[in-house]
């Protein structure tokens, strides 16, 4: 499987994502400069974490207008796999590929810490190989997921909430919600299921050397789904 990792000016988890899909998981990967306009040679696009355009104005708001984003929208609409991690999730909501917005964390501070996720829908292409709960390192100041009640209702009904912040036993408690997201939402997919946005960084816990490797299950799932589809 070939991954393409988009580098916006200010992206800073692009190298990390590349390292995991290529060196840890052994797949092909290339960086895609934000001024490129062509995605023909990739099977999955990763919009990495970081501070595209400094996160000035609103996170992801300026990156959305990078030349590559038209291609990403087309790619997604044609069913291509797209994952937005952290800043990448923010870019996806700004672009409209995913609904809602990511607001300032309720506590207003940037938070870098391991959280826990419960997999709320294990049938998506991104979660088929995931265990019930995952360790989930977060690192963001704007990760509070918000959408109108109608949108939230739709997401819940259609099983599009994929990950929720939870306790280590998988309980979705208010205390285990680090940023104030509605319904403890940490990650959602689009209707077709090929686009995932999530605030936690699965690339940060994909190797046992770093303490935990449960995040790799998300990448393994999409590789599995891709190979099954082919």
């Amino acid at each position, binding site marked *: 499987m070939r991954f393409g990792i988009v580098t916006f000016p200010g992206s800073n988890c692009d190298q990390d994502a590349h390292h995991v899909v290529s060196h840890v998981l052994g797949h092909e990967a290339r960086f895609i400069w934000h001024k490129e306009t062509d995605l023909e040679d990739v099977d999955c696009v990763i919009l990495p974490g970081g501070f595209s355009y400094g996160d000035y*104005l*609103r996170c992801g*708001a*300026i990156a959305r*207008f990078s030349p590559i984003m038209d291609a990403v929208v087309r790619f997604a609409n044609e069913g291509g796999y797209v994952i937005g991690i952290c800043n990448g999730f923010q870019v996806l909501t*700004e672009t409209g590929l995913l609904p*809602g*917005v990511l*607001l*300032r*964390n*309720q*506590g*207003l501070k940037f938070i870098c810490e391991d959280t826990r996720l419960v997999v709320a829908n294990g049938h998506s292409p991104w979660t088929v190989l995931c265990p019930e709960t995952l360790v989930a390192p977060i690192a963001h100041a704007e990760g*509070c997921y*918000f*959408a*109108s009640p109608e949108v939230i209702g739709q997401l819940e009904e259609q099983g599009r909430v994929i990950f929720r912040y939870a306790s280590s036993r998988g309980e979705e408690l208010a205390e285990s919600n680090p940023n*104030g997201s509605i319904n403890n939402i940490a990650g959602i997919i689009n209707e077709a299921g090929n686009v995932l946005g999530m605030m936690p960084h699965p690339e940060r816990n994909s190797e046992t050397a770093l303490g935990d490797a449960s995040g790799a299950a998300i990448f393994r799932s999409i590789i599995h789904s891709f190979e099954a589809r082919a």
Partner: protein
Amino acid sequence: MRIRVHVTPRRGVLDPQGQAVAHGLSNLGFSGLGEVRVGKVVDLELTSESDPEAALATARKMASQLLANEVVEDFSVEVLG
């Protein structure tokens, strides 16, 4: 022509920053404080527009395309002179 764009959180949308400011002000001893909302103000110099109406129209376009996210924010525009 200078245009000012206000971008403010919509009613009903969480505004933790506003809450924090309210909290901070009451810690400082200010009382009788109702709601506090924090938004953004963007001052733009539009060098090629001289007609106020046209300038406002351009600013509105800028606001709806980039400056505000209308899922959670409202905006308004005015001429600064």
